């Protein structure tokens, strides 16, 4: 039990740092940096939790990014800041870096050594995972704000 808690805390710390780093690249206002860090930790830890419950990575990413979207919605109404300030930094740790990179490598290999069924299946595997995880992130972030459109009034 203790080891699980320590693992979660470590992951929270290591996912908060990328959120802050990328928030700086996008030049967010100084006072929202801390919230970006919380957002990154919430996003990554909730995805890990869903995956521990046995969800697939795609579904877990979708739920995690909807949670980030809801939290960011609350913050943006409270502090009058557009939501992408919080959300985009927070989802950076969720990005499917490894599958995307492997897909590119598979493409290079197919070009260099000729196309083989194993390479094609590996490429499709990785590319599909990348695309579906990215779609999950996008739709997860968009859903909470769609809820407010029916009133036809601005969120912030």
């Amino acid at each position, binding site marked *: 039990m203790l080891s699980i808690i320590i693992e979660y805390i470590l992951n929270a710390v290591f996912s908060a740092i990328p959120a802050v780093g*990328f928030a700086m690249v996008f030049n967010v206002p100084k006072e929202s940096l801390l919230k970006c860090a919380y957002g990154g930790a919430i996003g990554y830890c909730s995805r890990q939790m869903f995956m521990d419950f046995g969800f697939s990575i795609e579904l877990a990413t979708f739920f995690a990014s909807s949670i980030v979207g809801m939290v960011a919605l609350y913050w943006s109404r409270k502090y009058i800041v557009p939501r992408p300030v919080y959300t985009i930094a927070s989802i950076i740790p969720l990005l499917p870096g490894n599958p995307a990179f492997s897909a590119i490598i598979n493409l290079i290999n197919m070009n260099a050594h000729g196309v083989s069924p194993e390479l094609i299946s590996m490429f499709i595997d990785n590319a599909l995972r990348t695309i579906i995880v990215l779609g999950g992130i996008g739709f997860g972030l*968009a859903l909470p704000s769609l809820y407010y459109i029916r009133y036809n009034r601005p969120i912030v």
Partner: protein
Amino acid sequence: MNEKKEKLTYEEQTKITRTIIKAAVLMLEYGAESRLIETVAQRLGKALNVDSVEVSLIPSAIVLTTLNDKQTQSVTTTRRAHHKPINMSIVCDVLKMCYKVEKEKLSVDFAIKAMKEIKPNYYNNWLKIFMVALSCACFAYLNEADWQAFATTFVASGIAMFVRQELSRKKFVQIITFGVTAFVATIIAALSQIYNLTATPNTALSASVLLLAPGFPFVNSVLDAVKGYLAMGWGRWMQAVLLTAATSIGIVFALTVLNIQGW
């Protein structure tokens, strides 16, 4: 209120229109989503006493019309939007200005002055390099890299971020910047594989180009598309794809130069 509206002359309405489109162009250039741009333009228009504001957005320009005097007097104007590096502090400042004008019923002169005074909140360049390098290294850690890969990623993405900043300071097109940065990052990260520094070179390689992930165009494209701004969604999606393609070309070129044939 109504009398005040009727007194609005053509010149005054032109001034208001120019102010509103200035705000909208600032938000589009620095990466706000379409719905935010449209609602801010309409709220500013309402606060500055015109009847209605109609906005038409395409990825590279804005057309904006203000209608007044029972919709008989209209001013239309177009501005080109040049894509600039994402800068959220400017978007936040424009939104705060709109909020203030709305709440305190301020005049158009205040809005013009406030927009002139907007200064981007730049972080120190070396701090940014350090933080981005650490971010990519943490991303490698989250993807189960060992500590050697962690260090490799830190060095590779730090140098890559330096290159990226230098290139964007010299005003290169974003596509070239991304391609060259990916090339540099991959070369340095791949050296660790050639000299067998780490057991997980794959993770080091993929994490060190993470700083080029086009998060903003991608998320904005989904947000725009699901809210009904399909053309904007496509435009931004294309932008994200182009940047990703530039990054991939950089990676492929670097791996070809070093003659690494996958793993």
